[in-house]
């Protein structure tokens, strides 16, 4: 009985949390509103020097290299 009660409380908690996600008040960028995100200025690798420095920092801190490249910018297409 106690387990069932806890499960019900958890389910209710999840419902409240997820209903917040479904709220219309949250800013949702629709696929057709991503022109600015798709711009060249939004590319993380637009500055080669900055990209090389960031990669070096990442390599030094994480002892890992590469594998971070993502093609294109932020339009979220496809």
């Amino acid at each position: 009985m106690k387990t069932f009660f806890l499960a019900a409380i958890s389910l209710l908690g999840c419902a409240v949390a997820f209903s917040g996600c479904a709220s219309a008040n949250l800013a949702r960028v629709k696929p057709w509103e991503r022109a600015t995100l798709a711009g060249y200025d939004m590319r993380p690798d637009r500055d080669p020097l900055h990209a090389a420095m960031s990669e070096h920092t990442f390599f030094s801190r994480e002892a890992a290299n590469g594998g971070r490249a993502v093609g294109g910018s932020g339009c979220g297409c496809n």
Partner: protein
Amino acid sequence: MRPGAVGALLALTSAAGRTEVKTGDEFPALARARIVNLAGGGEALPDLTGKVVLVDFWASWCAPCKASFPVMARLHADYAARGFVIAAVSIDDKASAAAAFAKKMAPPFATLLDPEKKLVQQVDVPAMPASYLLDRHGRVRFVHQGFHGDATERELRQHIETLLAEKD
């Protein structure tokens, strides 16, 4: 907790607020959404009555959309004579950007503009690009999200062939 209950809850919450046009729905009329022809000069919208129609939503800033144009040109070349029409609707904010893109690509099919974003909001496209294949009665029979090269072309051809073969 039962996994089924969690699944149902997730499905319910993710579906909340979504009204996108789906397979089986009637596609909204282009004229009612104040769609205009990018060719300008009072160019009329393409006649879609009784045709198998591919409504494609694109934008000048969308790289996969650009890649999809040559494929749509091939589809137009192969099927237009059999009653297939492509209506490529731009959702660009700037009409000039859409017009420049259309001029550069010079597709053989109609390039249109949704200046007030009425149609795209009504349809609630789930991704860019997105294509809606309509049967001769204007009903959505297939929805394709994104563009995946040969796989997309194969899939579209298969559905177009099926719809063109339908007599009524």
